[in-house]
């Protein structure tokens, strides 16, 4: 599912380097403590969360950080 990130997190990602042209790989921290790893985020704003992770409420995304390079 595609999740539009809230503005503060968008601004945070804009300040971080890209992973490739037009996208970043990030770890998303959710309000319930779960972390969704290696999520692709387009244009620092649209998070593409794998379907097998289930439904994620956009309001539950608390933080983002760049995923470590593999």
């Amino acid at each position, binding site marked *: 599912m595609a999740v539009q990130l809230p503005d503060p997190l*968008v601004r945070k990602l804009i300040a971080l380097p890209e992973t490739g*042209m*037009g996208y970043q790989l990030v770890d998303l921290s959710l309000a319930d403590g779960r972390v969704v790893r290696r999520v692709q985020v387009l244009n620092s704003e649209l998070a593409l969360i794998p379907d097998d992770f289930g439904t994620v409420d956009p309001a539950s995304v608390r933080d983002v950080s760049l995923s470590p390079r593999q």
Partner: protein
Amino acid sequence: MGYHLAYNPRNPGVPHIVCNHVLALSMIELARVLAGDTELIGEIRQSIRRDDDGSAQQLAEAAFLPLTNVDTAAELESGALRRNAVLAHGRVHGSPSFSRTTAASHSFVRYSMYRNDRRLSPFGFIAGTYATTIADAQMVTCAFAAVGRYALPSIAPPVHVFVDTAPANLALQVGTVAPANGQAGGGTEVLFPTGTGSGRLPSHHMVDEF
């Protein structure tokens, strides 16, 4: 192009990439290179420079030869070694980035799905932005070609094209796009650690989807 896979009989369990028939790297060493091991990358670049007088060949011979070349007809026909190497190690291609500086009037191109691309500013591409070179962009005839060449996420074709001209002596990282997102990659990619600092908003035009 310019390499083949081979085994060192002294260490037959580990395939090696052999560059220009003289410089052999084990898959373990290759993984260190891809992970950005600056010490090993420095050693390799020294070896390549030494090759100008043939000493790198002597170095390789002392360390690795005799190599058993596995590019036999049977191996080529089956492709098994290459396929297994790719499966075992994730990727064979993929370039460590090289630190370079721009010459005067170097222009760079960025393909985007978004008209409001967030890596743009009135001062050029912002810090941490990827783009490609004007020369490489000549190979991109449409948006879907950019998806493949730069291994982009392909949920929408990047029809928006932004061009910026960087000042001379700007530091950048340049390398070859590694396979990702189900795409082959292979294009030239450039990362601006401090942005382009051109002092102007990058120009915009569009390309056809296909």
